[in-house]
């Protein structure tokens, strides 16, 4: 949806001009989830009202409420994901506001929706982007993750000394926290379900100049990752290459980048890029 209808200018215009758009992550709205109880109750009210009114309803769905909060229309995601159908549905709903209502600026100022989680100063914040590169095995579009290492954890990723030629193995547990996110755009996005079967990430200092050390990173990952939330035998297999710039004296990381090298999954190819922010 993100790079489909929600990236379409006509959809964006309609949502901003006539609606207050909001998305709800089911994981947050389940019992024990991050959303407050009152939020969860409102989600359930909308769901139940849709059912009572004989509208379609489900966990992956579009619901439209009038200004009073009454459910006045719904669409299954399979229909909403088709841009033309979504536009037609939005236009049908807008009639509820009167004939030919004037478009207005968005009531909420648009802003970046994928942002780093809160972190302490000096943390290493890594931003990951994943995309399919052909051959299948991936949904269209792109996926993102944010991985944060505390200042102490970031230091622990570095070698004990920074002489040119020094080699070291990056802490496996810390590296795994990043590597479990190395997979293409799939339905299953629970990294806890991924099973790393082979992992290596080694560093080698290749230069020290003006007080900044540059080390190359080389590695490999083999990981079971199910496309849906049930075992399917699909495996991520890839080489890894990257670099890290750090201060040998301060033992702080200035920049880190890592990319997949020949990544395959489900019969297709994909690419993952990681950069420090």
């Amino acid at each position: 949806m993100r790079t489909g209808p929600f990236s379409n200018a006509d959809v964006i215009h309609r949502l901003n001009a006539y609606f207050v758009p909001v998305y709800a992550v089911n994981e947050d709205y389940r019992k024990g989830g991050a959303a407050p109880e009152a939020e969860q109750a409102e989600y359930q009210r909308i769901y139940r009202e849709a059912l009572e009114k004989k509208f379609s309803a489900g966990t992956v769905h579009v619901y439209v409420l009038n200004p009073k909060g009454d459910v006045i229309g719904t669409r299954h995601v399979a229909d909403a994901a088709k841009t033309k159908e979504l536009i037609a549905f939005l236009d049908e709903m807008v009639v509820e506001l009167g004939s030919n209502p004037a478009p207005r600026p968005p009531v909420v100022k648009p802003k970046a929706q994928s942002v780093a989680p809160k972190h302490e100063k000096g943390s290493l914040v890594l931003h990951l982007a994943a995309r399919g590169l052909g051959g299948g095995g991936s949904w269209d579009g792109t996926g993102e993750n944010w991985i944060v290492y505390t200042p102490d954890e970031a230091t622990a990723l570095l070698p004990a000394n920074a002489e040119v030629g020094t080699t070291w193995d990056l802490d496996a547990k810390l590296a795994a926290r990043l590597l479990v996110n190395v997979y293409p755009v799939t339905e299953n996005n629970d990294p806890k379900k991924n099973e790393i079967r082979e992992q290596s990430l080694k560093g080698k200092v290749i230069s020290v100049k003006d007080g900044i050390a540059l080390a190359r990173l080389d590695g490999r990952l083999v990981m079971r990752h199910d496309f849906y939330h049930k075992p399917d035998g699909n495996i991520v297999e890839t080489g890894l290459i990257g670099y890290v710039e750090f201060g040998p004296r301060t033992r702080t990381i200035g920049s880190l980048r890592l990319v997949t090298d020949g990544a395959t999954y489900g019969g297709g190819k994909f690419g993952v890029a990681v950069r420090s922010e």
Partner: protein
Amino acid sequence: MSRHFLPALAAAFLLAPGLRAAPVADDRVRVTVDESVKGWWLKPEEKRFDEIGWAADIRTARKLAAEDDRLVFLFTMDGRVNTGRC
């Protein structure tokens, strides 16, 4: 091992996923990595989702809709649509 198998084994090794025919030289690592990052990073047209004025949560959306005489558009999903991991 038969000599006939050696070329096939070598070819298989070179073609295995994640393995280059030759490792990237030290002085080419940065440019090689940066090229992939640039090529695979999200393009502006893939971030248009951010051009939508999303409310923080359902109750906020309802409150704003009531105040401004608008409709609420609620999208529920597994995973996180804001990161494309859904």
